[in-house]
């Protein structure tokens, strides 16, 4: 790693001047954005500084259990976010459980395989590798799952008459929800498909940019980026598929009825 240029806090202050300029413009032209801009940027600064400190500590302690605990806490936050992004949710434990559970299983499986067979840091759970990669996988899986679940849970009640018409003609619950299941899956998959299609053409992905800035040769940075995109794609796909199918299963029952009473 040669050619890495360290930044001083003074450099950051200078960069922030442009954001400040935006705030002044907003105030001058009564756009009403200055408050939101201020809150968002202050939040960003505090959150990132804290994360920096936290990661520094976790890297220094380098404990397997602390790393696992951190990963679990990340799952908890992401699960909460999936729950919050749905307009209508399944009642009871299912509302939280399906999104969080499926995301955790698919994310953990993928990262485990990647760490033990492809990246192979020493030890394999080394937090310096495990946590940032897990964060990237989790963030994308979270977006896919919340979009997919939200689409399913809003489409199925809207299409109640069409679904029940099929059930009444003797179709099974899976046949009856199939068109709307496909719709939800498509919506859940869209961001990752778009991200893969546009990556490198419109902008360089953040991780690759970071590696290049820290002196890694571009072709090496590309390899890392491809690896992480495959991992993200895999985890998002599994997560969207698993959570949407489980929710659809929960929205119908073994007598092939539509159970909108299970939706909050």
């Amino acid at each position: 790693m040669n050619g890495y240029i360290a930044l001083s806090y003074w450099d950051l202050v200078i960069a922030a001047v442009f954001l400040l300029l935006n705030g002044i413009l907003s105030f001058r032209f009564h756009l009403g954005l200055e408050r939101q801009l201020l809150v968002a940027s202050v939040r960003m600064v505090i959150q990132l500084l804290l994360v920096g400190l936290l990661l520094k500590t976790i890297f220094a302690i380098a404990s397997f259990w602390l790393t696992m605990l951190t990963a679990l806490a990340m799952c908890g936050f992401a699960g909460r976010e999936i729950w919050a992004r749905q307009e209508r949710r399944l009642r009871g434990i299912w509302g939280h459980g399906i999104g969080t559970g499926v995301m955790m299983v698919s994310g953990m499986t993928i990262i485990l395989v990647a760490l033990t067979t492809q990246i192979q840091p020493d030890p394999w759970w080394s937090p310096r590798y495990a946590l940032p990669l897990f964060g990237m996988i989790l963030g994308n899986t979270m977006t896919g799952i919340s979009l997919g679940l939200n689409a399913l849970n809003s489409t199925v009640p809207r299409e109640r008459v069409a679904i029940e018409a099929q059930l009444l003609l003797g179709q099974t619950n899976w046949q009856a929800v199939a068109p709307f299941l496909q719709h939800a899956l498509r919506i859940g998959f869209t961001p990752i498909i778009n991200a893969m299609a546009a990556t490198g053409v419109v902008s360089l992905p953040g991780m690759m940019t970071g590696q290049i800035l820290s002196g890694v040769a571009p072709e090496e940075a590309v390899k890392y980026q491809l690896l992480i995109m495959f991992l993200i794609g895999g985890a998002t796909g599994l997560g969207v598929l698993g959570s949407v199918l489980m929710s659809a299963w929960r929205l119908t029952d073994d007598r092939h009825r539509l159970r909108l009473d299970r939706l909050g």
Partner: protein
Amino acid sequence: MALLRIEELTSPLLHIPWLEVAEGECVVISGESGAGKSLLLRSIADLDPNKGEVSLDGRSRASMSACEWRRQVMLVPAESGWWADTVEAHFLADQPVDELIASLGLPPEALSWEVARLSSGERHRLAIARALSFRPRAMLLDEPTAALDPIATEHLESVLRHRLSDGTCLLLVTHDRDQAARMATRSIVIAEGRIVQGSVSAT
């Protein structure tokens, strides 16, 4: 011998201790809006969670899959549902329906129509044709003629009479008194989820 028999049919808003419908019978169900007429039909078709013993021709509902049951005890709700763009996609490919469609007063090309361009009367007649094409033993019809003009109503009633004479039975929810008088072999009145008037079996 009762074709359709209902014992202790119970759901949160419904309690029917006993109801029998014989072959060839048309039982007209009336009652105010919200009395539970549609709920009764939905519960018989097993579309809402419910308890109780329902049987067709002596065969218990519980011994059949829900899909098999619904093909023989066919409910056509007041609002018809559509899930594809063309009418044809809503019919099974291997069932001849031209005759049925003609007998309901629709032209044979109705199958190739787009669902979005159907009138409410056409929608409803096609939904009934779709259901009757399964040749169900029991028909549960919820206000089948509410959107139909007098001629279309006449067509439908004659098709239903034909089916009844072939040994099926019919539970018919209607607000139309004249229709009730024309079709009913027996009438019941429902209020607050219970049968409050009428005979629960053929005498």
